[in-house]
């Protein structure tokens, strides 16, 4: 016992000493590490460390060419690393918008433009992308692989879509903007516009495009965001100035100086001649109204603040018959609507497309506005308005009894039951439901009650189970139908087409693109041609069964045909192209591929796009499409 005790104490002391030493070295090691990191921070100066990112996700867009569940030609291809760049050509792995050129503006279903649209707002489509990290952007590169030149505006948002806390204030800044210009080459390019510096970090970028000058669909492969994690030091002053500029429209007002000097003249004469409105007092009321018709909406609102007379004129509801709020989507919110409410009691055409997203407009705000201003409403554009829900549609159906034109395209977040309310709008003449989730029962009830329908767009409505039933309902009820868009309606068959052709003889436009279940062998296209003499536009895109007889029938019966999109064999192209010389064919677009029977000598595939003007063959330009 006695020798053990001192040994034990020695052992425990030894153990204790060892433990303490290990602990000490550990803390020393940690301390050394933290020193190291501090030192490295000061050495590498992260202010200039640039972060380069590809898009992480595509969160919103207005349209695309591909099918809703597909990877081909859909907007989701814009995320991630490029799939195709730097190759040029038509590839399925790129992002493609729905339209190009001016064709869709020249067809019977084209709708009239709104008055008072500012000339610097030319955007037709948009796509919003998120990135992993928020950075202060220094460059945004767009990798375009075919027919570049469509991007006309790039914007950045201050909100972080991945943060769990909703942001207090959401701001959009224009990084770059330009008029649509024609790019002559159709080859791939890396578009590197010079962007403005902004004073907030962003990971949400929006591209707006205008495809009207393009010869074919533009194809985008990827978007690259260059930025720094920390705020660039020198930009503070410039950004303040730029923000002030941004308050106005960024269209250089050529007449701005002229207006200013005129205003000065008027105000100086007013001072001399007494406290009245100068020359404005001599003009009749309607003439002043006519002058004010030429002002854009923000200018009209500013003018109202100048004097009582002009305030009276600018608040006159007759100035707000056409109200186009789409160009101001980035700033329009509930307060703006409330402010405009009192002036817009007689509004007939209202464009709220693209507005209200990310919490800018609430259901309550929209409902209040419609309660005051909906009674005279004839046309309502709500494309891509994701703030809409079932209540909103209910309000529309109750407050807008005179509604004739309703556009809900790409409102894909609307629940299917919301569409039931549209059936109450019995005077509807134009209904656009492109890329919505409407279901069969709701659509059937709409078709049942809205017998005045003249224009109907059901493109990419994927939730409808049986298009033949829809087509027979259309044939039975919508006798006045003039245009019908059944783009990518997957299961329509010849029975549906037969019902349509017999029921709607006034049809001028029919889009049956990418409907694979239609076979020419059933005679459905020939029947269409015979029964629809008023056809001006017929799209049979990607239907490989179209044959010579169909083209013959079209040539003989549809003398007004101006736009035709078919996919056919080379024999069709050669023999019947002259049939169309005599008619006013303006758009003739088709593919042909290597003939698989009879030893086609041609190698590769050629795409030919021809455009006819009046009755003269102007250009046949074969474009070599490169293959993946």
């Amino acid at each position, binding site marked *: 016992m006695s020798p*053990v*005790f001192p040994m*034990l*104490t020695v052992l*425990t002391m030894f*153990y204790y000493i060892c433990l303490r030493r290990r602990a000490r070295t550990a803390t020393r090691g940690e301390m050394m590490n933290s020193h190291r990191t501090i030192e490295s921070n000061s050495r590498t100066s992260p202010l200039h460390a640039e972060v380069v990112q590809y898009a992480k996700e595509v969160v919103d867009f207005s349209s695309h060419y*591909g*099918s809703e569940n*597909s*990877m*081909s*030609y859909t907007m989701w291809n814009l995320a*991630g690393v490029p*799939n195709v760049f730097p190759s040029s050509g*038509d590839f*399925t*792995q790129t992002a493609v918008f729905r339209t190009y050129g001016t064709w869709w503006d020249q067809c019977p279903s084209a709708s009239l433009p709104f008055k008072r649209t500012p000339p610097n707002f030319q955007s037709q489509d948009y796509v919003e992308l998120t990135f992993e990290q928020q950075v202060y952007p220094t460059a945004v590169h767009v990798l375009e692989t075919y027919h570049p030149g469509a991007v006309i505006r790039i914007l950045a948002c201050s909100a972080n879509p991945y943060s769990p806390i909703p942001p207090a204030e959401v701001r959009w800044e224009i990084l770059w903007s330009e008029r649509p210009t024609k790019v002559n080459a159709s080859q791939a390019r890396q578009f590197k516009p010079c962007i403005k510096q902004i004073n907030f970090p962003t990971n949400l970028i929006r591209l707006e495009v205008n495809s009207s000058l393009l010869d074919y669909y533009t194809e985008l492969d990827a978007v690259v965001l260059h930025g720094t994690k920390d705020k660039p030091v020198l930009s503070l002053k410039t950004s303040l100035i730029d923000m002030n500029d941004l308050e106005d429209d960024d269209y250089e007002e050529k007449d701005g100086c002229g207006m200013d000097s005129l205003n000065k003249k008027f105000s100086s004469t007013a001072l001399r001649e007494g406290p009245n409105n100068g020359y404005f007092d001599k003009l009749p009321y309607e003439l002043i109204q006519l002058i004010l018709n030429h002002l854009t909406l923000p200018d009209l609102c500013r003018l109202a603040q100048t004097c009582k007379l002009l305030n009276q004129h600018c608040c006159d509801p007759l100035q707000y018959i056409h109200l186009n709020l789409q160009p101001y989507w980035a700033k329009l919110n509930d307060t703006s609507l409330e402010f405009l409410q009192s002036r817009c009691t007689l509004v007939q055409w209202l464009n709220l497309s693209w507005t209200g997203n990310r919490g800018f407009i609430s259901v309550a705000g929209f409902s209040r506005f419609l309660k005051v201003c909906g009674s005279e409403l004839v046309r309502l554009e709500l494309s891509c308005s994701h703030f809409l829900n079932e209540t909103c549609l209910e309000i529309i159906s109750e407050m807008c009894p005179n509604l004739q034109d309703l556009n809900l395209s790409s409102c894909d977040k609307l629940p299917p039951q919301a569409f039931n309310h549209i059936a109450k709008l019995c005077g509807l003449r134009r209904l656009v439901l492109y890329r919505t989730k409407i279901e069969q029962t709701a659509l059937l009830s709409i078709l049942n009650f809205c017998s005045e329908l003249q224009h109907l767009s059901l493109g990419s409505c994927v939730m409808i189970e049986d298009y033949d039933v829809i087509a027979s309902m259309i044939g039975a009820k919508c006798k006045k139908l003039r245009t019908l868009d059944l783009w990518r309606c997957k299961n329509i068959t010849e029975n549906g087409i037969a019902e349509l052709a017999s029921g709607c003889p006034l049809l001028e436009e029919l889009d049956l693109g990418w409907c*694979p279940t239609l*076979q*020419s062998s059933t005679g459905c296209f020939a029947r269409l041609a015979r029964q629809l003499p008023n056809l001006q536009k017929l799209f049979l895109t*990607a239907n*490989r*069964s179209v044959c010579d007889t169909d083209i013959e029938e079209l040539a003989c019966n549809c003398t007004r045909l101006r736009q035709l999109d078919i*996919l056919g064999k080379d024999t069709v192209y050669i023999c019947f192209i002259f049939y169309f010389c005599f008619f006013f064919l303006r758009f003739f677009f088709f*593919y042909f*591929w*290597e*003939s*698989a*029977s009879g*030893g*086609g000598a041609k190698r590769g*595939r050629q*795409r030919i796009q021809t455009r006819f003007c009046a009755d003269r063959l102007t250009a046949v330009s074969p474009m070599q*499409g490169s*293959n*993946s």
Partner: protein
Amino acid sequence: MFSVLSYGRLVARAVLGGLSQTDPRAGGGGGGDYGLVTAGCGFGKDFRKGLLKKGACYGDDACFVARHRSADVLGVADGVGGWRDYGVDPSQFSGTLMRTCERLVKEGRFVPSNPIGILTTSYCELLQNKVPLLGSSTACIVVLDRTSHRLHTANLGDSGFLVVRGGEVVHRSDEQQHYFNTPFQLSIAPPEAEGVVLSDSPDAADSTSFDVQLGDIILTATDGLFDNMPDYMILQELKKLKNSNYESIQQTARSIAEQAHELAYDPNYMSPFAQFACDNGLNVRGGKPDDITVLLSIVAEYTD
């Protein structure tokens, strides 16, 4: 007395401390996930295109290997050569099919337990091409679900896979044939030939699921291999595979493919293809010159 207690406490603490450190993976971490280490090799029938074309095509055959968060996927496709007589390049269809499957997997648009879904979606995507893609091919897709340790397969046609464990074949795919030398195939035909050309739906594929263990060898190949090399020869080659690193798998895959390639051009060798032909009344002998694609994988611990 007091010291005995304190000593006992120290000893107990030391022992317990030691015990708690012996468990190498205390919950969580990457332990338990399986992955496939895959290498491929092949030979095109046509010597002009014998070398790798675009990385994953051997003649009219094509293959792909892809990973996603939850699964490792690989596949082979054998383009039907008969299209060449009609002016269509058979390797386009099989190549595009495999590349589309690869893209689908990389983007996560698949369910690991449903490999037929990968084929169906990929086939639908092929139909979305504006310029129609003509041709046909067989297909075989193998998916390893990392966490559940299950292998899900889909096979349409006469390509296939073998699973070898402990030197024996424990699973194999069945050939799907309509008649002799005419396997089930996915195809896209020109419209006038639509009724005439054989076209099977992706749903007609055979699908199986089973558990795998560490060290299992999975051999996925087109019929160029199975028609020329009987099982015992393949197993012999696989015995030489000692460890699961990429180089040795690549080495073995190459040796299998080379051996099959040699046997294919041997006029006197009684290949499985010749055997099957004889059983069907056709008196043939020799190998079967064909495109050979071999993907050899081993189930191993998943490491990123």
